[in-house]
């Protein structure tokens, strides 16, 4: 459960960060993000990224936490890119 929640946090961070880019905002919403939305998405993305790190370290300590976090972060990015490619059809 802990791992799944952490993975979702990581995925959310990538979703927000990618939507802050016109290239990935366009196919999903039909237009590039407005400048304010763009800044907001990016700031939120970085904030969730930091929160996901804190989540894993709080749940699994300083020795295991960063290892689990990085592994989940990488796989969440791969999963989101595959999802983006599927959505872009």
């Amino acid at each position, binding site marked *: 459960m802990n791992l799944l929640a952490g993975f979702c946090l990581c995925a959310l961070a990538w979703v927000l960060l*990618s939507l802050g880019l016109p290239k990935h905002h366009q196919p999903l919403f039909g237009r590039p993000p407005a400048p304010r939305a763009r800044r907001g998405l990016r700031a939120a993305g970085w904030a969730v990224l930091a929160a996901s790190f804190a989540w894993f370290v709080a749940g699994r300590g300083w020795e*295991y936490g960063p290892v*689990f976090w990085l592994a989940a972060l990488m796989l969440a990015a*791969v999963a989101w*890119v595959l999802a983006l490619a599927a959505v872009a059809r």
Partner: protein
Amino acid sequence: MKNSLLQSMAWLHTWAGLVAGWLLFAIFVGGTLACFDKELDDWMRPALHGTQPPETPRFDAAMAWARERMPDAHAWWAHAGTARDRAVTVHAAHDDGTVASAALDPNTGALVPDTAGGSFFFELHYNLHAGTPGMYVVGLAGMLMLVALVAGVLIHKRIFKDFFTFRPRAGGQRAWLDGHNFTAVLALPFHLMIAYSGVAIFVASYVFGGVQAGYGGDMAKFWEEAGGYYEREEVGRPLPRLHSLDALVADAQRRMGAPVDWASVHHPDDASAVIQFGTRHDRAVAWDMQQVTYDASDGRFLHQTPPPGPAFRTYAFLGGLHMVQFGGSALRWLYFLLGLCGCAMIASGMQVWVRKRAARVARAGALSGHGLVRALNVGVVGGMPLACVAMLWANRLLPPGLPARADAEVQAFCAAWILAALWGAWAERRGHGWRDLFATTAAALLLLPVLNLLTTAHSHLPATLARGEYALAAVDLTALALGLGFAALAWRLRGRRMPHAARAVEAGA
């Protein structure tokens, strides 16, 4: 200047990647499967399914087998039956390198049919089953991978712009390059860590100048001092009788403050013989390399390794990070999936090489290495997964009483790979080598649970799920999932009959 640096890095990335690529793919497939080497070992020993290993491990039956088989061995070594891998495995090794091995029921001590098991993939991924020379070859491949990774980052001009980009429908070289880039970039920390720590595990062997200078090349002495292990000289008198190992396990666990995982007897035919116990590596990132030593004749406690110094702990941390015995099955799954990303990165990279040159080679119409690379790609990338599944099939189909059963499984693996490579290379001449191999692999994977149902009484999915042996069930379920993946790949390749090169020419004409 910048231009020439980029060009030389591109050259380095291309050729380091191509030369080491097939080897790295085999190493990555082996290593990815080795995330679950113990679970595969267990899956491949149906005789023990449904049983529970004893709470306190027992070794006396294993050592009795070793004494019968090889009384004058250099050492006997036995691994306890655990929840992950129930069999007690025992090895006896001569000074000349000959090894005898067996697997025993952890409760009764009776022999169970042997198997090459998941350990086969583990050993394949660090020495290709070729001993010390194989270890050096793998080390070289690992170093070339580090070179290719660093050069790859340098030449990737759109590393941030294309961070989330994958256009599978763009077709051709574009799609393969996207696939190569995103599996490489998004999992880059993993690729760097696994290549670096993999090489670091054997660093004392790869850069042997250090051991040459400090220990006159005596590798055993180096490890003995680095790890604080105990060793004593042979005295040339026979050992009167071997003390019971089982009687010492409780004391060893108390002294180590950790469960006993393995036991060994060194020079068991000499009065200087010692019994040693060690533990598992699942309680911290770094390996727990401590050992306790007892006199083999009277069971007297002799020695316990001191806590490791910072240098050895650093080494044990890097090794532990690579071998992922900590963090439970959750982290092993994450490593497994990241390993699959690595396989995809290597395979797609080599497809980029082929696609990039296809049109040029076809126009030139000359005999070249291009066809060889294409054939090797099909043979290695398309053939190895099929060989791995063939080994699981052999495990279930070979008769339990067959002598040298583990060797027969390995032969099935090798034969399947050779046949698959030849078939794939032949069929690829007409452009459907990939489709044929992927479709066959998909069928073999999807039918594995069916085979399991037909050939075993207690090891098939309904039985393992009912008993709650989820690690066993996960092997069948993963086979189904991977089978669907290969089926999807084969489906995408349907109807392609012309070789890539010919199509590229037509498209260009």
